[in-house]
């Protein structure tokens, strides 16, 4: 699905809604060396590569897949 800029927008069909309640005070963003988990950048997925990979998946593998109940 393309947005108004002609950019592929995979989630454009999701309904957008206002924030339902006042979020209250926001904590400050952690600093780079704050000790929390880091935030590396994630690039945009290359659709062609992923589609190629997905086409190799056996369409029937889930039908054959059987497990015993676990916890």
């Amino acid at each position, binding site marked *: 699905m393309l947005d108004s800029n002609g950019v592929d927008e995979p989630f454009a069909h999701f309904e957008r809604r206002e924030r339902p*309640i006042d979020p209250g005070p926001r904590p400050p963003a952690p600093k780079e060396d704050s000790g929390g988990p880091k935030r590396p950048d994630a690039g945009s*997925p290359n659709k062609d590569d*992923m589609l190629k990979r997905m086409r190799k998946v056996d*369409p029937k593998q889930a039908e054959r897949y059987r*497990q015993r*109940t676990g916890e």
Partner: protein
Amino acid sequence: MPTPHLFGIETEYGITREGMPDLDPVVESMELVRAYLTQPFEQSWDYSGEDPHEDQRGFRVSSLQQDREEDQFAELDSHRPFSFREMKSDLVLTNGARFYNDHTHPEYSTPECRSLVDLVAHDRAGERIIFRAAQKRNQALQSYPVKLYKNNTDFHGHSYGCHDNYLMSRDTPFEDLASGLIPFLVTRQVFAGAGKVGVEAQERDYVSGVFQMSQRADFMETQCSVDTMHDRPILNTRDEPHANREKYRRLHLILGDANMCEYATALKVGTTRVVLEMIERGICPSVDLADPVSAIKAVSLDLTLTAVLPCTSGTDLSALDIQRRYVDAAAKALIGTDAETDWVLTEWQDVLDQLAGDRSALVGSVDWVTKQWLLETFMESEHLEWSDPWLASLDLEYHNIDPNAGLFLSLEAAGNTRRLCEDSEIESAIHAGPSDTRGGIRGLCVSRFRDRIHSVQWERVLFKDGLIKPKTLEMGDLFDPDQVGVLREVLEQASSPSAVWDK
């Protein structure tokens, strides 16, 4: 000193052998675990701390719903040429983890962790350990290679778990725990769900044509119960603290999905820990869901996140409303507690904002959003409908832990997922446990004195060195990081286990 909320994750993996008819999952799981060994298998796991009949509500049940089925399997297994312990094949690894065959699934239980980065690294280490075991097994096999999936369903009504565990104070009344946690847990799936094609129920009724948020929601059938394989509860009441019973509980949550996204794992556990903190402080928001079991299924099926969930007070709330109540209360009370809590609060608010608006930035961070994006991209390309069986197969392949085949791992290899730890940290976690928990101590005992260990379990290690009976390293109360550090130093320098006692 407040109780440290140490945490850990147990994951049961799906296992199959490609193209093999009449697969025996007992043998396959057992052989997979043993393939990881570099020496003959030795039985050292001590089961004495395990009694799944003990209930946190203060009683012991005489039977579990799964007992009859377990007895039937035991009868079948009694004809096999190996004992129960041999079938389980419990390994304790040098990183303090437990790797074994649980209910015909290879299960990896991380060591106890104190930080989210450590937890993510150890969860990922588990994936790689199991994949390496599969590689070794496949080298020995002539045909039908082993395949492993970090997911929770076989799309035929059989589910297997990914359990998150938290150390907490015994002083917290169970009723407070239940009322504070259940609304949060019902709605946690909005960022922790792994996504699933189809709808199913326990051992029956798979219906395609639907994509939902959670793998496990379909299998939640009651609010609180000690059972784990039938009538699964939102809040499991099993009382196995694996620690000093007088002082601690272990919260054992079985409702969660196995996450491939590091970010989802961290946020799932981080937010749960924050909610436990609020419950212990008596500041948890009150949400009176009328029917939590129906609600958890309704949330999973509502990808718009706009459905309102009936509350007994008459103020109906959406899943995002409920999550916002929790994060707002937490932000007011816990901001500035420590860097990791601040990270959790910031990300929790951000992810709720993104779920309510533009979700595209969550591809690679939240599993169900990532999976939905992948599948819809494929459907558009191949002109498929949700009912096409190919989509369930792609769903399964998302969770394949072979980096040459798994769809999530392909995204990760291309740099399209949000990473929270380095590959070098995962590699370290394969070999050594956290430096600040007893999990690391357990691993150190294994790496330094494997031949001297008589038996081992979560809260103690027994060494053979006693003159009359084994000497015991008790860890049921070992949660102070300074004490862990002192013991670690002693263990690292000791020439034998007896030298530890001498010091």
